[in-house]
């Protein structure tokens, strides 16, 4: 902040967001791995019920940023976070906030599908409920069906809910993981390169799914695939060396980047 160069970016960020309510507001978020300063002051207003893509070259801190939004970053030994992440007017890092409660509101889907290996398809989706002590069978059945439908997986698995989750194909496993995250009704869904381990057809399905889900929840998706960001997102933030270089409506970022470094990245000059 404060550099002359960055002023227009801030202006446009404000302009792009003017019609949208903010889902998550971060304020000067810094993150460290031991002595490595991975995030250097990220301030960003992520719009509610939209898809926000975070792009940038490997090691730019985009995944770290994502993991700061559901307090997963601090699980890494030696990791630290400073700054504010405000949801519903409350900072999730203020003292006394239980990270477990934060993670119930902010779901996450990982790069590699990671269903629980010992659990069936049904148990995987129900895991968030059963492990939180939701005992009512009927309610659980309902939530499992809803979540699998929302993840566009129901028709493919409804006849084999008792089969192991790992028996599904990679793309199906990823949708299973999305269903599992949806089952605890999060307000925000973080997706960390959710399609990078999948084939093109499965990738498209995940993208369509994300578009559908964004009608109801805020989605933040990290991707190093620029076409994916262009296809799927409403807003895009470009990260470089732990800093947010540019943020705005996806269309603007891709057609008229204002920062030279964004342009260089988008045209493939580095990364």
């Amino acid at each position, binding site marked *: 902040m404060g550099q002359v160069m960055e002023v227009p970016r801030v202006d446009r960020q404000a302009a792009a967001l003017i019609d949208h309510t903010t889902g998550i507001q971060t304020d000067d978020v810094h993150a460290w791995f031991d002595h490595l300063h991975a995030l250097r002051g990220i301030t960003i207003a992520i719009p509610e019920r939209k898809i926000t893509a975070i792009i940038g070259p490997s090691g730019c801190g985009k995944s770290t940023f994502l993991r700061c939004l559901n307090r997963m970053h601090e699980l890494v030994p030696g990791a630290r976070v400073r700054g504010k992440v405000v949801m519903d007017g409350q900072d999730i890092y203020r003292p006394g906030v239980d990270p477990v409660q934060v993670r119930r509101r902010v*779901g996450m889907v990982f790069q590699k599908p990671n269903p629980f290996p010992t659990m069936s398809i049904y148990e995987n989706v129900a895991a968030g409920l059963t492990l939180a002590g939701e005992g009512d069978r009927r309610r659980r059945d309902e939530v499992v069906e809803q979540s699998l439908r929302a993840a566009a997986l129901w028709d493919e698995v409804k006849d084999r809910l008792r089969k192991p989750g790992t028996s599904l194909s990679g793309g199906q496993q990823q949708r299973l993981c999305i269903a599992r995250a949806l089952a605890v009704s999060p307000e925000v869904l973080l997706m960390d390169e959710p399609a990078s381990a999948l084939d093109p057809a499965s990738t498209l399905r995940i993208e369509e799914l994300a578009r559908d889900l964004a009608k109801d929840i805020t989605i933040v998706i990290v991707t190093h695939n620029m076409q994916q960001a262009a296809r799927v997102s409403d807003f895009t933030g470009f990260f470089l060396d732990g800093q947010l270089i540019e943020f705005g409506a996806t269309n603007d970022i891709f057609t008229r980047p204002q920062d030279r470094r964004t342009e260089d990245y988008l045209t493939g000059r580095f990364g």
Partner: protein
Amino acid sequence: MMDRRYWFRRGKDRGMAVLTFLCTIAVLIPLFLVLGFLVRTGASALNWDFFTKIPGAAGEPGGGMANAIAGTLLLIGLAALVGIPVGVLGGTFLAEYPHARLSQLARFTADVMNGIPSIVIGLFAYVLIVLPMRHFSALSGGVALGVMLIPTVMRTTEEIIRLVPQSVREAALALGIPTWKTTVRVVIPTAAAGIVTGIMVGLARVAGETAPLLFTAFGNRFWNWNILKPVAALPLQIFAYAISPFDDWHRQAWAGALVLVTIVLIVSVAARVASSRQAKLR
């Protein structure tokens, strides 16, 4: 010249191959000799009485080792009660907090304990339990075997839990499941089959231990189900019979050895089956 070198090299190669082959055979020979001899001599003394009767009077033919078989099972049970909870929970701690000072100490201690002669462990149980109680007991024998079980179970549990991918843990934590519940309901079940394997291998190993039982379980010629009294055990009975002057007892010692080996074999095979069921972790 070239030719001679070639043949020399080729000869060396062949020679080494034959040598390694022979050494491999040499590994198998004692095992099969022991097993073969055991079956031949032991099987002839195996009969219904052996499994149902207690030992007869000294020098008198007949009688069996029913009480010793039961005693060994009782001792294994007691050892499991002592060793499994401590081993599994300790191993879980080692895996979840690998860098804690305590973990490093415990890991080192476990490795040292694995190398301590079993008779010393027996001595430990003797001082800890037999001396204060003023008599030998199944309990003290079970504790001795249980203490021997701890390092094996603890280290296997640790290894297997560490094989559970971080991504599985993260999946659970990201769902808003507390850390302890993640460990108990997700990580340990994922590792369960492997942990069971470790437990069985450990149990099979301690089942045949004789030295730690000499002055703890002590042996008993009669039935006993009271864990505060001395109890018979197969290894002890084999020892007592083998050094006796009676031919019939010698035969029964062989039969006892055969039964003991069979028990160990069954447990080992069960461990193999369990480990093949271990979820593919990677």
